[in-house]
């Protein structure tokens, strides 16, 4: 994985953590692993409020835009307000959400498009 890709991936982890903590979620699990060229983020949260989940679905579920990624990725992990989660949606290829009992699982996938070094 290229250094640039690693920097973006770690910023995504920070952004997700920051967003959840700003919303008062102090207990959650975030696992990440590689599936070929695709980075997978698996986020498990208990008792997630529907409006928080809706915000994540709306903002992260957007289509990836590489042209914005090259411009604004450095702002990732620098969330300033409670409802800001704009940039991460531009960096993620797909988002799947499942809820079982009180446990919500979000699976985010991102394919690396940067040159391997």
């Amino acid at each position, binding site marked *: 994985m290229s250094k640039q890709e690693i920097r973006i991936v770690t910023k995504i982890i920070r952004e997700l953590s920051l967003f959840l903590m700003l919303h008062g979620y102090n207990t959650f699990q975030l696992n990440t692993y590689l599936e070929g060229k695709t980075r997978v983020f698996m986020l498990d949260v208990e008792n997630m409020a529907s409006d928080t989940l809706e915000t994540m679905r709306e903002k992260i579920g957007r289509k990836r835009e590489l042209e914005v990624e*090259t*411009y*604004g990725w450095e702002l990732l992990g620098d969330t300033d307000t409670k409802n800001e989660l704009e940039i991460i949606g531009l960096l993620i290829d797909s988002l799947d959400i499942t809820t079982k009992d009180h446990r919500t699982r979000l699976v985010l996938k991102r394919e690396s498009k940067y040159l391997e070094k």
Partner: protein
Amino acid sequence: MKTLYALLKRRMMMPVIFIVLFAMAFMFDDLKTIYRGYLNILQSPSVLISDYLHIGGLGATLFNVATIMLINIIMLSVLKLKMTGPIFAGLLTIAGFSFFGKNIFNTIPIYIGIYLHARVQRLEFKSFIIVVLFSTGISPIVSFLIFGTGWPFYIGVPAGIAIGVLTGFVLPALGAHTIRFHKGYNLYNIGFAMGILSMLYAAMLQTLFRFDLFRFDSTISEAFHTELLILTILLSTIFIISGFINDRGVLKKYPKLMATTGRLVSDYIRDHGRDIAMVNVGVMGFISVLAILLLDIKISGAVMGGILTVMGFGAFGKHPRNSVPVMVGAALWYLYVFHVRGEASVGLAIAVLFVTAIAPIAGRFGILFGIFAGFVHIVLTPFTYAFQGGFDLYNNGFAAGFVAAILVPIFEFIRKDNGKEMSS
């Protein structure tokens, strides 16, 4: 008819703007006058503030604006890019600055540099489209080295092209880095990155070659105030009507758009839809008109550049709630200077419009903080201009980077918000 409207809407009325500008060029001047004026524009050193209305006349300037827009519209089509907020803002910014500094000759080397950067990174050129569209703010360095140094062409032309390409090559990396300096509160981030490069170029040219960078004619032309005022009103009206054609209840979406801070990267076309984005673009145009009428500012090339840029960012971070407070802050200083000296420079006049670079500060911290930030911004702009030597046309973007970097941490400290109190 519906198909045509759908096509125009998809391109955010850009073809209409191009046709209006192109037609107006030939309405005001004949072919010979346009040709002569256009040559003058191409051969101008183009450093800040080179008013093309004064250098080439209205017809040639509009022709310059239209041709640069056409090239960029074609480039976007070839790259199969859809019209997003940043792309729309980039196009109108290019159009605006083609009134005072950008021409076909001095912008191409910078594009080539960014293309080379993309090749080295092995990413598609279109991945860097936002930097591409805003990159040409530093194009005067190309014109200056060719036409402003007094060097023979066999030295000046290669030097100008080489520095232009080199600038384009480093700009994507620099722009991605500088955005952290102001945390996305300066909408003209590339302007800030280019200001830093300009500062370096200015220092080297002044120290190593003893050039006087501020000797060029910066006479502006206010002779076409009425024509350009009508053009602004016409364009703003087109945008607002276009927003209503498809959706009569489009204004219901406005409160949600205006609730955003506007901080980078806020794409109003993607997030809120084309209809309300077009209405917002038109409203921002009318706010600009109102500002210049209230302050009795006459429209020169530079002021027109400011108006079009404000309109363009109506799809990329600016709206009345976050823009008006910073404009009020800048206007207070403008009025004070005008009252004391009996006149105010065009630099101050355009700052009243370009101050909206820091609109996200008002969007995030509120009206009073916004007014204060606007005031600080307009006071700072003459100093940043002296620093960067006039090679960065986005001098207000350069100033806005410092304003945001200084004020945002202080405002955060004063507000002491912990996340729960934060608004959107």
